[in-house]
């Protein structure tokens, strides 16, 4: 019967498979080893959330703890990627992109184009996103809209353990720089994860629920929010399609327009703040190429336009809830 493991384990499994199948794959980051190979025989931490635990013992020379120097971490990873390695960088929390955006924005994303197609940048950046652990304003942001908006980068985000494994394997083997977001809300949830080596193609969304009355489009943790909303809506006889974007750039426009074509009504749920968001892109797609399919406004259920508050009550109110999705759907019917 199907094997269910937490997303964090599935990610570790993907990393091990990638390293076993390609000697050029290395891991770099703060405390990705965190002990383990030390003379004093201490046990390793395997990253702040333990995701990489066990890897340094198996690949002592290819799991590299770095100083707290993200600019050098990202920048040297880009340099390593264009010269023959296939680095997988752990940027502990995506909030830290503020100290190391340039290597992504102006280097990794642009080399291939600026150099007339002569460069390959097989770089993967894994990074934890999202709220829900009362980690407050600087450790809880969903900043994937920034990397999504940069031409030359690809950005993916899984909603379950199985996709997290397959997307990460695809990202590592992709010759373009890929940012792989790991939402806090799914890291410790268990779900079915196939054994062995497989890839989930980058750029393909997945219809995870068949309805027909309304389309709920989610990404990462908000796919579960959408599914919960869909189940409650079902009880009132509203049948919802739920589309898991999985890839934020490239965006699977065809899949979005297909479900919109079925339902004529769409709500997009995004844990990020609303301005310049993936949610806005989905809505803009609907009112452009999907205009003739629309029977109602396109609603965006996102975080409010404010920093992530510490207080438990406020953080709960901050994160998009099934209730808010249901209310949005009600406005469309």
């Amino acid at each position, binding site marked *: 019967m199907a094997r269910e493991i937490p997303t964090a384990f599935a990610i570790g499994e993907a990393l091990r498979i990638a390293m076993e199948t390609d000697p050029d794959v290395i891991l770099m980051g703060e405390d990705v080893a*965190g002990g383990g190979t030390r003379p004093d025989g201490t046990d390793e931490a395997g990253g702040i959330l333990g995701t990489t635990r066990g890897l340094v013992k198996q690949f002592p020379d290819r799991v590299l703890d770095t100083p*707290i120097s993200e600019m050098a971490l990202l920048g040297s990873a880009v340099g390593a990627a264009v010269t023959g390695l296939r680095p997988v960088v752990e940027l502990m929390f995506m909030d830290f992109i503020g100290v190391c955006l340039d290597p992504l924005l102006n280097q990794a994303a642009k080399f291939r184009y600026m150099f007339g197609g002569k460069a390959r940048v097989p770089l993967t950046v894994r990074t934890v996103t999202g709220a829900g652990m009362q980690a407050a304003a*600087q450790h809880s942001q969903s900043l994937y809209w920034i990397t999504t908006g940069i031409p030359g980068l690809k950005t993916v985000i899984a909603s379950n353990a199985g996709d997290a494994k397959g997307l990460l394997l695809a990202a590592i083997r992709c010759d373009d720089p890929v940012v792989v977001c790991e939402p806090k809300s799914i890291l410790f949830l268990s779900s079915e994860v196939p054994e062995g080596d497989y890839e989930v193609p980058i750029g393909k969304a997945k219809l995870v629920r068949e309805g027909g009355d309304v389309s709920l489009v989610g990404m990462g943790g908000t796919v579960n929010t959408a599914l919960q909303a869909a189940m409650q809506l079902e009880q009132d006889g509203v049948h919802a399609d739920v589309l898991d974007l999985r890839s934020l750039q490239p965006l699977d426009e065809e899949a979005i327009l297909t479900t919109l074509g079925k339902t004529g009504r769409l709500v997009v749920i995004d844990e990020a703040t609303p301005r310049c968001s993936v949610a806005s892109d989905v809505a803009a797609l609907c009112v452009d190429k999907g205009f003739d399919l629309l029977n109602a406004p396109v609603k965006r259920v996102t975080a409010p336009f404010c920093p992530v508050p*510490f207080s438990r009550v406020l953080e709960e109110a901050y994160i998009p809830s099934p209730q808010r999705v249901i209310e949005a759907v009600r406005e469309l019917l």
Partner: protein
Amino acid sequence: MELTYEMILGAYRTMRMIRSFEEKLIELVTLGKMSGFLHVYMGEEAVATGVCMHLKDPDYAASTHRGHGHCIAKGVDVRGMLAELFGRQTGTCKGKGGSMHIADLEKGMLGANGIVGAGIPLATGAALTAKLKKTGGVAVAFFGDGASNQGAFHESLNLAAIWKLPVVYVVENNGWGEFTPTEFVVPVKDIAERAKSYAMASAIADGMDFFDVQAKAADAIARARRGDGPTLLECKTYRFAGHYVGDGLAYRPKAAADAWIQERDPIRLFIDRVLAEKTLTTDDLERVDGEVTRHIADAVKAAEEAPEPTVDDLLRDVYAEPR
């Protein structure tokens, strides 16, 4: 500078307050009464205390993710801090900041900070204000050994050096950055060495010895106030607890840690010395211990009874001038 009885007693109160405050936090987390990311300062109390005793309210200090000690030493109200950690409306930041963002500009506390190294340029800017507005104030940046590998450290110290800003950079070298020993990531023996890259004054203090810290901090702060420019002050200390509350410490060799904890506890060392030198009596110490314990107990009670924010607060204070 000669330390008066009041100064020494005040220093003890501050160190004890920090220690008891964090012991209480650990208790509350263990009992499941408190949540969030908590980084405790235990073992490093002499640093914040020895530095901040020479600062006044109009002077500024920038802190880190491990900020409770700096906040308390800089005079932030403990009741507000506890309420903040409980996420209450009565908290220093109305429950919106939490442990990593406690700030009180009226007390000159520029804030704990969740971004390693981010406080360094902030304090540099506060020093620029002091210099241009001729306030006579100084600014202090507290940060860790790990933060000294951030680009912001390099850029800020260089800027302060060429502008001769009234700022003191206090690097708390506690031997660890998360799970990584400092010597794995810092190739020089003394981080104070790095001041030479900016032709900047530097000093090294025994961070477990309050008296050594306060003396060297006094020099550095005086240099800044005189207009003679910045100082990099390295305080050698040790992180007694894990990186965060809940850290199992599996990666840390126990023997070495125990040696520090048993032989170099800054509060223990302080007590031994003041009693030996008869500057304070056991009565003094016990009186303070009692006051601190009661103060914290009251603060916890008040915090637990205080109201939580309401959803109406969610969109408040994003902008000073909303449209």
